[in-house]
């Protein structure tokens, strides 16, 4: 029972748009959100690696989340944002279509991810939060850039 109680916990999520879907990432993993910046391309890297940018003196890699998830390409707009996250000691930026809000989501409205949803491999998902009028896909960032893939990335170079 105590376990059940513990599970009904509220967590804050940064909610952003990508293609037609709404996604959320744990706010604890988000470093900051910046507007689109000039990004320097790095040759011989995986396609979804957009390049590197200068975050106040640090050089951080930036990935295009649309490309990462195999979603249709689109031009960057005024609302395009880079969500800077930190996972397993790496800081990196993710290009998303726009950041809308920070939401408190209590864990009792989060359901396990369905096998396949909107082209995004189920592995990347932590769950789906059902709000009154919409669904928010919660991302498991560690999986989005899991080790396996990281190794592949390094081999590309």
């Amino acid at each position: 029972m105590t376990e059940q109680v513990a599970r009904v916990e509220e967590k804050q999520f940064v909610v952003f748009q990508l293609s037609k879907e709404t996604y959320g990432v744990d706010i604890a993993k988000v470093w900051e959100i910046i507007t689109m910046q000039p990004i320097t391309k790095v040759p011989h890297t995986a396609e979804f690696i957009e390049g590197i940018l200068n975050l106040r003196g640090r050089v951080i890699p930036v990935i295009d989340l649309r490309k990462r998830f195999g979603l249709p390409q689109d031009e960057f707009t005024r609302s395009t944002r880079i969500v800077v996250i930190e996972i397993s000691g790496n800081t990196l930026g993710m290009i998303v279509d726009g950041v809308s809000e920070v939401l408190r989501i209590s864990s009792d409205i989060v359901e396990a991810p369905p096998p396949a949803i909107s082209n995004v491999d189920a592995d990347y998902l932590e769950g789906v939060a059902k709000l009154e009028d919409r669904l928010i896909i919660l991302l498991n960032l560690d999986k989005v850039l899991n080790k396996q893939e990281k190794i592949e990335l390094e081999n590309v170079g």
Partner: protein
Amino acid sequence: MGLQFDASPDEIKLFLEEAEEHLQLLEEDLVRLEKEKDNQELLQAIFRAAHTLKGSSATLGHQRMAQLTHGMENILDKVRKGQLSITTPIMDVLLEGLDFLKVLKEEIETLEESDVDLEKILGSLSKAAAGGQTASSAAEGKLATIPEGSTAVTEVAAAVQAAEPAVPSMALDWDEKDHVTRGKKQGKMAYSILVNLAETSEMLSVRALLTLMALRENGEIVKSIPSSEEIEREEATSVLHVALISDRAKDQIVHVLKELPDVVRVEAAPLDITREEAGASAPDGVTVAKTTVAANEQANAPLPKDETPGNGNGSAKIKDTKIAKVSRTVRVDVELLDNLMNLVGELVIDRTRLAQLLGALESKYDSNDLVEDLNRTSVHIGRVTTLLQEEIMKARMLPVESLFNKFPRMMRDLSQQAGKDIEFIMEGQETELDRSIIEEIGDPLIHLLRNAVDHAIEPPEERVAKGKKPQGYVKLSARHEENHIIISVKEDGRGIDPDKIRASAVKKGIITEEVARRLNDQEAINLIFASGLSTAAKVSEVSGRGVGMDVVRNNLEKVNGSVEIVTELGKGTEFIIKLPLTLAIIRALMVSVDSRVYAIPLGSVLETIRLTDGQIKEINKREAIVVRGRVLPLLRVKELFNHQTRGVRESGKTFVVVVNLGGQQMGLVVDSLIGEQEVVIKTLGKFIGDVQGVAGATILGDGSVALIVDVPSLVKKVVKVG
């Protein structure tokens, strides 16, 4: 077999650092001692290093290491006392002992027990030590049996008793007295306990710490002389004086202590904290009831047979001279320095940025007071940043001495093995270099020096036949030159024969005969850096480490260094290594391709050429240009880095940056040259990892990021394909 040490990781780390230093010092000084046999000061320094090492390894609980240092110390002590003279066999056994010590030290790092034959080396050490025993040997022999005979123990105990007044006052301060009073109020007893440890114990500090631990189990230690910190610092003496509060009876405590190894005598008395309180609290009465126990059954830890107590006196003397001096230096983790360097790098970028912003403000608001103020502040920040950058760069610098120091020993051994008479000269050890570079150049230098001894210098007879001095020389020198450090390895040996290299390279299929003919002598000599080429017919123990000259060059290139050969057949060879001062900040030529900016490290840039139409030729299906009669393969940066610009071919204005790497030259085709600039090297990070042709990234004054071109990898690519 796994090993375990009774120390925290931090303590082990500290021990390792110190041990490394002491081993280094021992090595250098021992080699020097062989030449300067009468240098007493040197001998003292060696003795001190060995002694400290013995103490700290014992504290750590590395008994074998302590035993070994102890054996070496014995010999050194005899030399110091004039009972032994320094001969080659003595030096050999000491140096051999040192090698064993290194292996034992590594055990601490790996926690794996090595299979060194400690018994053997201990045997040869004691044999060497015995060789010099003269008149005093009889007396020492008698004392050496101390641990086995209880009569002897009593003698020692008696001697100690005579020298030391029984249970002297502890001179407790107010806090400590308060501690005692509180203890007494809780119904506990306070004791003043005097413990004598066998002075011959080779692990005095360990024994002292054990004693303190035993006491702690039986009560609270109010004060101990020396304190446990002092003991850990290796300032232990054979007498330990402790103020203890405990609820145990005196006899019980005495009994516990008596059981400990190497405890010679225990005396305990109720503690009399102040005169005022005397009588009121001491249950046993004011008169001190002395209990003297000669520990008869203390032979639990028999000492090695070759143990001589002579060192006891020696160590006491050393301790006296070792007055606690406040060090002017601080040990800092390299990572901290790296972080500081990174932060300064950011400041450097911001400084440039600030200057640019200020320019924009000035042109907008002319001479507004605020802008003026901002200007002054900006200039000041700029100046401070520059100073900070210089200072931190300096903090990262180490004299190359730290690397060079291990070479004299190596050269001594190598020349002996090879049966050659070689004078090894070192110069410029004080030259400073970034520590990360020093780490990288160790192996290449060892390889060059080994080669010099093994292949270059001829045996004495051959030298005489050639009309040279029988003794050859190898000179290792370091010096500062402009923005570089030059390290040179020079010898007066055979010199390199370009024809032999040509023949060998053709034979091994590295180049064709036709190519070999076309190469000029310098180019042929540079072939020794090609992998798979070794002109030495036989691979000796010395050079058979599997490290070829190609590795030498690769290692040097890793730190943006280069190596050049100057050789004259029959006269000798000089390897000239050119290294940057630091790795973190380099000077680069900034170029642009399709409006993308790239930085090319200036160290590898030879010249720039403006291309005119039709200058590019196709040779072997590859683009190349001819510069002063030489064919220069070309590489288009645009193609190299997959720029996806369509159709735009050169508009007649293209530049070629000629880069050089160990004699190999090639041209990088770029759109335009921007200029020279200092850039701070940043890695692309773990996530992206290594990218071919890219050495890292840097942040430009306008905040944008530019890639740094990795010239060595490009040259290799082109050379391989061609």
